[in-house]
């Protein structure tokens, strides 16, 4: 009982729930538009932003955010020019960016970095300011999602249909890329570089089984994300397991559970 009244656990729980509120709808588009590798790329290249923040003593979140925006924008323009297939471009940027970040960090001999916290998150170390960033950023992200919803959905079904209907799907695509970049930048502290994309994909994939329309799937993904956070945090406290991975494992178990029974919804 006293476990849940502990200040840092409450903050961690609230941060996880705040993250689930925005990763739910954004994750649906990541699944529908097959953008999981794009998410990985943003997450991996954030290591470069982290290295720069440490080297020049700058704000970590702002540096990750700036780096993520830069990568998302570069990707958008490179993809438009069609120089290389998208997955090749993403692989190039993801691994090149991460390698650059690691090499850059090695030039900073007097600085000790908790790489494990960066890779897998440290939700228990969430401060009040971090919590405010997650919730304010999350609510702002939700507003943007609401604004982008129709053009982005139309473009997901068919980009040409959206253009003929007078929409600007390309602009919506760029804004969505920047939004995903921002979500990843904010979420790195919670679940880490390696696990953030899981929080985008798994709740959305679990919600698909029971959703009849896109909006219900987004709402379902939020619910799965919140349930995963609560269950994962509880398991972490109870079994002394790392919090970020425990949340992802909880989401994975929910996904597996949704696959055990046929709901008969998607067929009709």
């Amino acid at each position, binding site marked *: 009982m006293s476990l849940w009244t502990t200040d840092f656990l409450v903050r961690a729980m609230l941060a996880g729930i705040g993250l689930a509120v925005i990763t739910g709808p954004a994750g649906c588009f990541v699944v529908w538009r097959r953008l999981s590798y794009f998410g990985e790329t943003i997450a991996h290249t954030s290591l470069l932003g982290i290295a720069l923040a440490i080297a020049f003593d700058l704000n970590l979140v702002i540096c990750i955010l700036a780096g993520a925006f830069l990568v998302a924008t570069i990707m958008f323009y490179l993809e438009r020019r069609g120089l290389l297939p998208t997955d090749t471009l993403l692989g190039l940027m993801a691994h090149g960016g991460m390698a650059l970040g690691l090499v850059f960090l090695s030039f900073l001999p007097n600085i000790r970095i908790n790489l494990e916290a960066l890779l897998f998150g440290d939700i228990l170390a969430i401060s009040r300011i971090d919590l405010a960033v997650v919730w304010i950023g999350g609510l702002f992200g939700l507003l943007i999602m609401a604004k982008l919803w129709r053009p982005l959905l139309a473009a*997901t*079904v068919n980009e*040409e249909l959206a253009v*003929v209907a007078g929409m600007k799907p390309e602009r919506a695509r760029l804004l969505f890329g920047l939004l995903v970049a921002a979500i990843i930048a904010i979420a790195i502290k919670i679940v880490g570089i390696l696990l953030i994309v899981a929080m985008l994909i798994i709740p959305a*994939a679990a919600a698909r089984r029971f959703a009849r329309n*896109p909006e*219900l799937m987004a709402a379902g993904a939020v619910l799965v994300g919140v349930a995963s956070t609560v269950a994962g945090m509880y398991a972490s406290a109870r079994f002394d397991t790392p919090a970020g991975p425990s949340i992802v494992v909880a989401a994975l178990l929910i996904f597996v559970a949704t696959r055990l029974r046929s709901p008969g919804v998607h*067929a*009709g």
Partner: protein
Amino acid sequence: MTERIPGSSNGGGSIPTEPENRPPLIEAVNIGVRRCGHWLIRNASVTVRPGQLVYVVGANGAGKSTSVKAILGLIPITEGHIVRRTRKIGYVPQRFQINYTLPITIRRMITLTANYPDEAIDRALESVGLDKLGNPQVATLSGGELQRLLLARSLIERPELLVLDEPEQGLDTKGADDIHKLVQDVRDELDCGVLTVTHDLEQALKTGDDFLVLYPNEAEIEAQHLAKLAKARAARSGESAP
């Protein structure tokens, strides 16, 4: 690379079609699209007027889809000019596939780009014969049903111009005939102009008011197409002669 059949709306010809006297909905004059140093289409001209059924025909790779996309403004043209006199355009794209992970019902599909009252959705579904289907997921539809749904979606705002990119693609002969018949019915009911890319030359010859014939390049003019079109024109002229 392109051939206009005499008797077309611009060509001053012999296929007697009343809509020829009406002002065009869209007019493309000598348009060309160049990508990576190659002309995908060149000197393509076509005019669509209310009530007209205009077909874009040609071999694979001749630039049929490119030409309608250019006419719709989906891709930029390198030369020529296009005058669009209507904004009420319905479009049925080619190679339409719905991602299974996206749950979307047929009614939701119709309201994809704008909200419409239930009665309008019912009317659109009824006009293509999908009203008895209920409200299933789009991913579960057959190829023919999906084409009908796309047509219903494009009709909901009662377009003045309907553009279809190979609506018979992936359908068997009967399915293709049904969809072409449906398009003609829509044209008659709405009195709209229709621009259709098709591989079904027979269908085009039977029902088309005008044609844009495209060839992969100037050296590969397909005599067979020309012969068939000329034959059909002659036959139709004979039929309509007093």
